[in-house]
């Protein structure tokens, strides 16, 4: 056992045995081995940045989901389930499934046919360089900063949960990601994300199984939650008729129009971090099937994230409190619920696997950020604006160095956040500014041939500025939330939903207005980019059970059934 791995602080939640340490070390050895093995298969730009466009639907689909399944996501939403009850599931079901199916059936054919390397790359083809530059610079900047913020948050978690030194966590995890992505490019990131997907499930699945056993099944669990909290904690929709009848302080319009129609659409269809995995699919059918496979597994994720939070609400002997209160009282915060459940049920070996699942979640998210940043920097910023005459080999080398530099900037951001904690709030808010308007711009570009370059640029800019303005307004005057979210009873999460909705509307209105006032783009320049001017290739003469539309229908039916069961 290495002494570095057991640098202790007295407040740790769990203690690892030697067998747990062996499991964690084996994980690091395996991901580095995969990167080393794949280094010889990342010699061309197509290989390094697009994984050779040869991923099967399953590999692309699981990687697509895994890039989103970060450790902070797992722990944060388990904490939200403890705090808000089953309402947190909306972020996994209506806040993800419709968007993933929309990506698969409507948007993916355009991304795939255009052979773009990135989402900003599509904007360049459709609207010109100004929209591409605005999107690429904001994405690259925010991605690397977000990576640093997540890195710091994860190191902090490792310090609290395991007592690990914060510097050790930051450097070991970030250098591991840097090495395997720089060696094998996107293919290495995708391979490791698939591996991490299995580890996350293997490490986390036991908690809800044992938790339900201890609680006496779902019916008894609901009764215990109703006694300890409220009956509204186990209903998805019945309390959303008013801002005051559910623990989240949100109205169903915010969930349906803000979260489902705009925010999740923006994230799942235009955030290059996740879309990049699908672009690596080997053919159009795989590219369409991948998000559908991702959606099917996404529907199951609440079983390992939300359910542990609900079980914690019922069985944990301690009462968890908000982070701010936990810091003062020395108690446990909502975010500690998943580690507490791990410690409750997992003995030697299982605990190591659970901790490995958390580390794997963090590293898959970070590898996603780094590989997406590398591609956007190289293809959408460096090549068009700095050096357009480099060879393919030159751009691959640029990609490798950008991976290293991106990780180092992330590490720098992590240390900056360590000094100025409030930066974390600002960076997370900044990232949300771009998502909703970008969706407006991309979806109008794909579905409306009359949208013009100036329309796309000004719509994206005005939508983003609208989002920033609303956020600043509420920051300066918290009572302004009543105007943004349309109710004096709205709480923090409602702001995100309505902020996204308004910025999307502003983006669409400005794009349409400016487009109608400017010269249309000739149809022949829009072939392969816009609905109605593009012949969508058929998925081939395959049986019904291999058609994306069939599986999208199956997922849709299951989605509705689940929502009705937990209404």
């Amino acid at each position: 056992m290495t002494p570095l791995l057991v640098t202790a602080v007295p407040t740790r939640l769990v203690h690892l045995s030697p067998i747990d340490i062996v499991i964690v070390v084996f994980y690091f050895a395996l991901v580095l081995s995969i990167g080393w093995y794949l280094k010889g298969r990342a010699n061309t730009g197509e290989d390094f940045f697009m994984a050779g466009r040869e991923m099967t639907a399953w590999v692309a689909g699981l990687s697509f989901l895994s890039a989103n399944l970060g450790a902070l996501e797992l722990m944060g939403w388990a904490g939200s389930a403890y705090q808000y009850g089953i309402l947190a599931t909306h972020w996994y079901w209506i806040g993800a499934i419709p968007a993933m199916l929309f990506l698969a059936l409507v948007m993916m054919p355009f991304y795939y046919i255009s052979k773009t390397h990135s989402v900003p790359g599509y904007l360049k083809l459709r609207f010109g360089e100004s929209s591409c530059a605005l999107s690429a610079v904001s994405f690259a900047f925010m991605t690397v900063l977000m990576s640093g913020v997540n890195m710091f948050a994860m190191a902090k978690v490792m310090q609290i949960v395991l007592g690990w030194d914060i510097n050790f966590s930051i450097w070991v995890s970030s250098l591991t990601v840097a090495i395997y992505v720089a060696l094998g490019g996107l293919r290495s990131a995708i391979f490791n994300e698939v591996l991490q997907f299995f580890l996350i499930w293997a490490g986390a699945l036991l908690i809800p199984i044992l938790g339900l056993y201890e609680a006496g099944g779902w019916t008894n669990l609901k009764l215990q939650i109703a006694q300890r909290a409220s009956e509204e904690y186990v209903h998805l929709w019945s309390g959303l008729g008013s801002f005051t009848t559910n623990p989240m302080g949100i109205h169903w319009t915010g969930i349906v129009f803000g979260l489902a129609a705009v925010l999740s659409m923006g994230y799942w269809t235009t955030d290059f971090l996740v879309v990049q995995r699908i672009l690596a699919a080997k053919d159009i059918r795989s590219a369409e099937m991948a998000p559908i496979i991702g959606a099917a597994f996404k529907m199951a994720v609440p079983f390992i994230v939300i359910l542990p939070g609900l079980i914690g609400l019922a069985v944990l002997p301690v009462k968890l409190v908000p982070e701010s209160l936990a810091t003062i009282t020395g108690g446990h915060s909502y975010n500690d619920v998943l580690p507490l459940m791990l410690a409750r049920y997992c003995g030697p070996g299982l605990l190591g696997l659970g901790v490995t699942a958390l580390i794997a979640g963090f590293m898959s998210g970070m590898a996603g950020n780094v590989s997406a940043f590398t591609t956007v920097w190289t293809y959408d910023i460096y090549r068009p604006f700095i050096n357009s005459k480099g060879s393919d080999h030159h751009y691959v080398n640029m990609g490798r160095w950008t991976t290293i530099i991106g990780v180092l900037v992330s590490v720098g951001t992590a240390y900056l956040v360590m000094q100025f904690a409030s930066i974390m709030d600002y960076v997370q808010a900044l990232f949300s500014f771009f998502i909703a308007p970008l969706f407006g711009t991309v979806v109008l570009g794909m579905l409306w041939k009359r949208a013009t370059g100036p329309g796309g640029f000004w719509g994206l800019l005005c939508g983003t500025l609208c989002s920033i303005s609303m956020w600043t307004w509420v920051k300066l005057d918290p009572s302004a939330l009543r105007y943004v979210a349309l109710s004096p009873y709205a709480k923090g999460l409602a702001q995100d939903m309505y902020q996204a909705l308004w910025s999307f509307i502003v983006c669409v209105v400005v794009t349409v207005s400016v487009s109608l006032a400017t010269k249309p783009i000739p149809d022949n320049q829009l072939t392969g980019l816009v609905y109605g001017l593009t012949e969508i290739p058929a998925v081939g003469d395959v049986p019904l059970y291999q058609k994306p539309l069939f599986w999208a229908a199956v997922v849709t039916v299951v989605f509705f059934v689940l929502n009705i069961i937990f209404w």
Partner: protein
Amino acid sequence: MISIWFFVGISLAVNGALILAAGIYQLVNPPVNPRVVLFHLHANVWWGAVLLVFGLIYCFKFAPGRQS
């Protein structure tokens, strides 16, 4: 090229074997005051075994020599 599923198999099999071994050790030498609740279910024995079996199936099915 070695399939990603082979690497998944290695990971599940090794982790499963380690967890199963730890579980069997605790089954033979049970602690006086078990730290975890539901200790009597010996989750690490059957969960380790499940992971080991799935891992071995993946390793066998996607072994480099068996691929075209």
